[in-house]
C-alpha cells in the first residue's frame, strides 16, 4: 500500500498539472473534477502500484475524453459540473453584429463534445488522425469532418491568440482548408 500510495503521489505531483490543463480544454472549470474521476477509475482497475506512469497518463486522458463525449447522455452529476459559457449568440447586439469575441476556452465550450475532443486531441495533444479515429471508434474521414466543422465554428467567435496587451498575434486567415497529402492512417 505504501508503494502504491507513493507511486500515485509521485504521479499526481509530476503529471497532475498537465492532466488538468488537458481537462481544462475539454471541459473548462470542471477540469479538476474530470481529472479526479478519470484517475479514480484508472486506479480502481488494479490494486497494485501503477507500473508505467506514461501508460497510466494515456489511459487517464482517454477516459477523460470518453467522459466528456458521453456527457450529454450521462447522469446529472456531469451536467451540473459543466460551466455555462457564453456563446456568440449571447453577445450579439440588437443589430445582430458580434460585439465581443470570445476567448478560445469559451469558444471551445460552445462546440459539441465530440468536436471539442477532436480539436484538443489533434491540435493540443498532437495525435494523428488515425489514432483519434481509433479512440473515438469512428473513421478518419469522420475525424477530419469534425475538425473541419470545429475550425469553422471557432472562426465565428474566436479571433486568434492575443498578446497580454490585447494585440492580436496573428489574424484569422480566411482560407479554405487544404487537406494535407499523405495523412497518416
Amino acid at each position, binding site marked *: 500500500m505504501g508503494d502504491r*500510495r507513493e507511486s*500515485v503521489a509521485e504521479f499526481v505531483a509530476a503529471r497532475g498539472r498537465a492532466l488538468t490543463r488537458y481537462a481544462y480544454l475539454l471541459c473548462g472549470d470542471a*477540469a479538476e473534477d474530470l481529472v479526479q474521476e478519470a484517475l479514480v477509475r484508472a486506479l480502481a482497475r488494479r490494486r497494485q502500484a501503477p507500473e508505467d506512469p506514461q501508460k497510466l497518463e494515456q489511459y487517464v486522458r482517454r477516459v477523460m475524453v470518453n467522459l466528456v463525449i*458521453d456527457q450529454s447522455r450521462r447522469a446529472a452529476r456531469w451536467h451540473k459540473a459543466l460551466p455555462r459559457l457564453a456563446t456568440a449568440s449571447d453577445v450579439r447586439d440588437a443589430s445582430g453584429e458580434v460585439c465581443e469575441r470570445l476567448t478560445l476556452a469559451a469558444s471551445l465550450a460552445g462546440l459539441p463534445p465530440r468536436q471539442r475532443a477532436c*480539436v484538443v486531441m489533434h491540435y493540443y495533444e498532437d495525435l494523428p488522425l488515425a489514432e483519434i479515429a481509433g479512440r473515438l471508434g469512428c473513421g478518419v474521414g469522420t475525424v477530419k469532418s469534425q475538425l473541419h466543422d470545429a*475550425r469553422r465554428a471557432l472562426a465565428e467567435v474566436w479571433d486568434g491568440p492575443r498578446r497580454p496587451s490585447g494585440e492580436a498575434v496573428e489574424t484569422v486567415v480566411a482560407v479554405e482548408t487544404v487537406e494535407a497529402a499523405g495523412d497518416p492512417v
Partner: protein
Amino acid sequence: MRDVDERNLAAGLAAAAEEAPEPSLDADRLLGAADRRRRRSAVLVGLAVGLAAAIVAGVATLVGVLDDTEDRAPDVTATGVAPSSAAPEPVQLPRLDEGELYVMSRAAGDLGLGQYAAVFTNLRTDDCRCSVTVFLTDLGQKGAFLAAMVAREPLINSTHVLFKQGARPRAECRSLATTIGNGLFAGGLPFRVYSVSPTIECSTIEVGVDDVRAAQAYFDGPDNRWRQEGLALTALPGEPAQAY
C-alpha cells in the same frame, strides 16, 4: 466561409491550457475513492458468480450469466450440459443510465460485426436497463470479447455485460432465415405464412401463420424440408401485413 488557421489554433490551445487552475489532487483521497469503487464492483461480481455456482453444480468453469426464463436457448456449460431449470431467483444489477447502456451496446455491436463476427450472434439491452447481454456461439471467448470491449471503451463496467449461448453466427443466422423464409413464402403448404424471424440467439425460426396447429404439425413432421440439427421451427399466430 471563414476558417481558423491551424497554427493559430495550436498556439491558442497551448495558451488557453495555461489558464487552467492549479490542481489540488490528493493521492490519499484518490486511492480511497478508487478502493471504494473497486469494492462496489467486487460485490456485484461476487453475487453473479455465486449465483452461477449454485446453478452449475460440479463444473469448474463458471459461466457468468443471469437466468432469464424468456430465453429459449439454454446456457451451456463447458461440459455441454444445460443447467438445471430449477434456478434460484436472479440477482438484479443496479439500473444504468441510457448513456452507459448505449456505450456498452455500441462497443459490443462494433466488435460483434467486426473482429468477432465468426462467433457473434446478437446482443440486447436487457429489460431491466441494468445490463447488456451478448450472445456468442463460443462462450470460451467471452473473456477476450469483454476485454476488447473495455479496451475500446474504458468506462464500461464489465459486471453489467452478460453472455449467453448463441446457436450460430449472425451472418449464418440471417442467411438461414432468408433461405427458409423464401421457401416458406413460395407457398404449396397446408397453411399461410405471414412472417419469418429468428429468435435472438438463433436457435429457433418463428413463423407467423394462419393455422398454428397445421403449421406446427408440418414443422414437426417428415415433410419439413428445412429440418436441421440445432434449429427448431415454431409456428405462432400471425397476421397479414397491413398496407399503408
